[in-house]
């Protein structure tokens, strides 16, 4: 137990003294995860709208696949992305493996089905004739989509939080496609794993505390937006 207390003190110390390495790792974690969440947000809500508003053959299968994707093991995603991005692999010419961009790609693949799945459930919850009503009032198709998304904004923000939570805490894929390279692709989770295996448990706990604070800060912001909506 002392170790956890030591870790918390250490985390505060690292944060207050603005330790350059830890700061760099924290900013990279935030940047990579926010970018991945943003990409997944666009792709996920897009897919959810497509599936919620259209009827086409194979739709049920597509929904089942999205729901399966919500539980995709990140290591599997990491492994496949690694093999595809190998410099002698199919997308090797992009030279993306062991870069922060590779982590974003893997994390976006992990988060997209999460956001799509939750969003889809949210959109299907809306009254079925809402769309007809909106269109009947003379809205364009783009306006109709916007109004529908707005109508479901509460659960949609929950979907974003679930997606962000999935990627900021993810370690398996991040270490495989990023390589945990110091000062370049080392994020909070991969650094925590490394410090644990080095036996630096206090630093590992300090990094965990920073990770929790970060996740809390982002979710608090999103919750704020979500609950403000609610009051109206």
């Amino acid at each position: 137990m002392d170790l956890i207390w030591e870790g918390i003190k250490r985390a505060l110390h690292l944060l207050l003294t603005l330790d350059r390495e830890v700061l760099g790792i924290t900013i990279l974690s935030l940047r990579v995860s926010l970018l991945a969440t943003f990409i997944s947000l666009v792709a996920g809500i897009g897919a959810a709208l497509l599936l919620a508003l259209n009827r086409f053959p194979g739709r049920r299968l597509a929904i089942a696949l999205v729901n399966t994707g919500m539980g995709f093991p990140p290591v599997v995603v990491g492994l496949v992305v690694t093999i595809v991005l190998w410099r002698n692999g199919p997308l090797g010419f992009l030279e993306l493996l062991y870069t922060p961009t590779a982590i974003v790609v893997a994390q976006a693949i992990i988060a997209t089905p999460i956001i799509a799945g939750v969003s889809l459930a949210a959109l299907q919850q809306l009254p079925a004739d809402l769309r007809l009503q909106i269109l009947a009032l003379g809205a364009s198709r783009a306006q109709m989509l916007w109004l529908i998304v707005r109508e479901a904004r509460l659960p949609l923000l929950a979907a974003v939080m679930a997606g962000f939570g999935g990627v900021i805490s993810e370690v398996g894929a991040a270490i495989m496609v990023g390589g945990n390279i110091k000062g370049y692709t080392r994020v909070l989770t991969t650094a925590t794993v490394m410090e644990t295996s080095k036996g630096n448990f206090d630093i590992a706990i300090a990094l965990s505390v920073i990770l929790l604070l970060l996740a809390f800060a982002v979710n608090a912001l999103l919750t704020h937006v979500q609950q403000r909506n609610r009051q109206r």
Partner: protein
Amino acid sequence: MRRIYAVLATVVLALATCAVLGTHAPAAAAENTLILATTTSTQDSGLLDVLIPIFEKKTGCFVKTIAVGSGQAMAMGQRGEADVLLVHSPAAEETFVADGFGLARRLVMHNDFIIVGPGADPARIRGTPSAAEAFVKIAASRALFLSRGDNSGTHAQEQRLWKAAGIEAEGQSWYQQTGLGMGQTLNVAAEKKGYTLADRGTYLALRSSLGLEILGEGDPALANIYHVIEVNAERFPKANAAAAKAFADFMVSEEVQTIIGTFGVETFGSPLFFPDAGKPE
């Protein structure tokens, strides 16, 4: 309602800014990069944290250190996914070079493996000079033994010792494979009060938190030898041969050899690695 949009817009804008910043990779990363596949022990001991910045400063080359087991490092080399290897699995390395995947293979340094276990020493191996004999005793008393089980250099060494002892350990109830790195395997051994084979460097770095004791050491069969191998660029045109050679030259240079010989003295009272460049194998 307007204020909600303002908040939403701020969030989206912040995300978009991150998106733009996120694409900004270090300039060095684009042009001259070297992929170094190495073992966890060189990273976990902190040695590479000292050496890599010196190399990067000297050559302007950006080093991507991928710390995995020796087995995985060589598998990466075989696919041309690494430029240079720093590994410690001599038998597998010789095959690697003989099969044409690696060019120059040069001796860099050594330390040694040790057999660690609980102080109570249920298998009574303390003081046994031969490592193979100690393994025979562990097997005979069916004392718990934790294996890395991950094809790492340490795992290969352990398998050699079981072979020398004439024991088929795999599948026995007292023989458990963690599939984890050295540090984590040591932690498992400490928790379960089992024996394991470890490199001295990682053990020394973790000793204070473990409560495991060194019960077997000093047998020449426990030597842990590190080589640097340049991946054959003729086979893999994408390999950065020039940087790989520069790194291998750097590792055996007098400057680095001196650093290796003194690394860890301050923290642990004794060096973690002993420089060997230029010595006969």
